[in-house]
């Protein structure tokens, strides 16, 4: 079986130790987590983990089984890139002087459909959401001018199919 990128989504009760348990499942199998995002989900008091890994389908099934076994985990799913809508977010901090001295910068911002988050006397901050490749492309464009700081978030994604978590939760009651 060949390696592929999989997005694992985990719906869980909010619990202090759970991140440790979940990351341990990857650690134990020596599988590298490419990106991890934890946030509130559409359901009150239910958290959602989004974990991106590069591995085989057999392994990802096995991992999802082990994740679902954790007491606080309500349900875990995995999807391929084709089955999800996903993106990352990045922030670029750039010296303000460039905004006025380098006319090209303004074009880059416009063409890349990124937004200016803030402008101060010394620097301005650009936010760009999109696929990894789009963010990398933008990075390459800014790079020659000098990037003061750069940060990229973990992947967030929603599936194309329905994920019936609310109905599932109803059945638990």
């Amino acid at each position, binding site marked *: 079986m060949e390696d592929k990128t999989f997005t694992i989504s985990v719906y869980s009760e909010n619990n202090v*130790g759970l991140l440790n348990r979940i990351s341990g499942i990857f650690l134990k199998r020596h599988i590298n987590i490419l990106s991890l995002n934890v946030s509130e989900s559409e359901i009150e008091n239910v958290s959602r983990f989004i974990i991106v890994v590069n591995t085989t389908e057999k392994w990802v099934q096995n991992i999802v*089984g082990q994740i679902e076994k954790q007491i606080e985990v309500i349900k875990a799913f995995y999807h391929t890139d084709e089955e999800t809508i996903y993106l990352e977010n990045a922030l670029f901090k750039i010296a303000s002087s460039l905004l006025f001295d380098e006319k090209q910068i303004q074009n880059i911002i416009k063409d890349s459909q990124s937004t200016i988050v803030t402008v101060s006397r010394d620097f301005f901050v650009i936010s760009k959401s999109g696929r990894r490749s789009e963010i990398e492309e933008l990075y390459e464009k800014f790079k020659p001018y000098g990037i003061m700081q750069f940060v990229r978030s973990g992947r967030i994604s929603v599936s194309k199919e329905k994920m019936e978590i609310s109905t599932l939760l109803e059945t638990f009651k």
Partner: protein
Amino acid sequence: MRISGAEAVIRCLLEEGVDLVYGYPGGAIMPVYDELYKFQDQLHHVLVRHEQGATHAAQGYARATGKVGVAIATSGPGATNLVTGIADAQIDSTPLVCITGQVGRHLLGSDAFQETDIIGISTPVTKWNFQITEASQIPEIIAKAFYIARSGRPGPVLIDITKNAQFDEFDFSYEKCTGIRSYVPVPKLNLDKVAEAAALINSAKKPFIVFGQGIILGQAEEQLKAFIEKSGVPAGWTILGLSALPTDHPLNVGMLGMHGNYGPNLLTNECDVLIALGMRFDDRVTGKLSTYAKQAKVIHFEIDPAEVDKNVKTEVAVLGDVKEALNAILPLIDAKSHDLWHNEFKELYKIEVETVINEELNPTNGKGISMGETLEMINKHSKGDAIIVSDVGQHQMFACRYAKFNSTKSNITSGGLGTMGFALPAAIGAKMGKPEREVVAIIGDGGFQMTIQELGTIFQTQVPVKIVVLNNEFLGMVRQWQELFFDNRYASTKMINPNFVAIAEGYHIKSKKVTQREDLDAAVAEMMASKDSYFLEVMVEKENNVFPMIPTGACVSEIRLS
């Protein structure tokens, strides 16, 4: 009722029906110990000699009784000493609740005296764990702990309680936990899958059952017997499934795996339908996966969905409670006898008897007492009614291969983790849980010295366990591997041992050492007749090997008889 957190801990245990706990005191758990003193009429505390002994004793208790075992320890080193037993319980699905003390909440994370992140340490080896930092959390969390430990696929749970939470007072009330929103302990049985499985079994020419501990944990021994008898399917067992079916049942064909019987291993690669009942295809059972039962359609009866298709691809997975599933499938099964197929097992058994078993049980090589004949002697005097607790090594394999069992929950051993030092404390727990039964621990000279200090617990509690040390003056199992796979290079496996009898007598335990075959019978008879604990050291042949054997990484049909 306004009480302290420490008192609440005791009251919660009583509410859960606990009357016996194993533990070792220390600073961070002292408030709980103070309450144990107050409640000693209702809750008996056994002071072990090392916290590892507490977890193993609690395991022995749980495995013999089917109830939850409880171990208590202080923070830091007390807590870390529990970890081996917890890991052992996790892999062998043993229900345990471990309670550890922790430094006060305001000190957490400050590297305070005897502070250890036991939640972090125990996470990979517990079914669930939780740190309590406020007294008022105690009832709910302990109720959850017991529910999680015993429900579904059982396992160990650890509850860490900060010292302030033990001291603080709150209004106590207790409610048992009956469900947790995100936790489905037993998947719902799918009757279509049951019917599919039944059809496959009915059409099979050479069906074969392999059963594991799931039968015992699911209390499905009767159902297993009925299923085997109606379907006529020969059944083999994993080491943890041992004793779920009486040894002398005509359809019991023996043990699977690395040192299992010849027939069941070989014929695993010949059966057309393999019916796995409450077992998880451990690698010690399957050998090389790529050649394991490839010709067979596999039916897997399993409570834990994560085990299905994990190691072996199944044709039909019957998820759910094994007892319920067997009850459902029984009426759908055709009554058959499969005589020809069963004869294949018998033929292979004959070969094994001639090449291995006869010589092991009645040695003619003039070498010395064999482990096998010692086991036979124990069978003779126990008549198959004893609980046998074995440690880890060659003696364990001999015990599991040769000990006879009439009833379930009689074989207690460390299967998945293979923890040396397990048997002595586990035997204490087993005997305390089942005082009416004879409990015999079978231990190697190596493993005995890993928890030898629990002789002190035996002396102090006067628990009448029988201890048999099979002394070959080697770390026998490792030596066997060195002989077979490392050119006889016996690196650090020779043991220069102390005078074990003197040590046991130092603990005021009646003892005997046997070096001659002709003394064995009388010594075992005396041990079994003893009302008190008894220590028997048997000097056995130094370089005996356990056969059959499937070398690691080899396929089950490459099983070697010598």
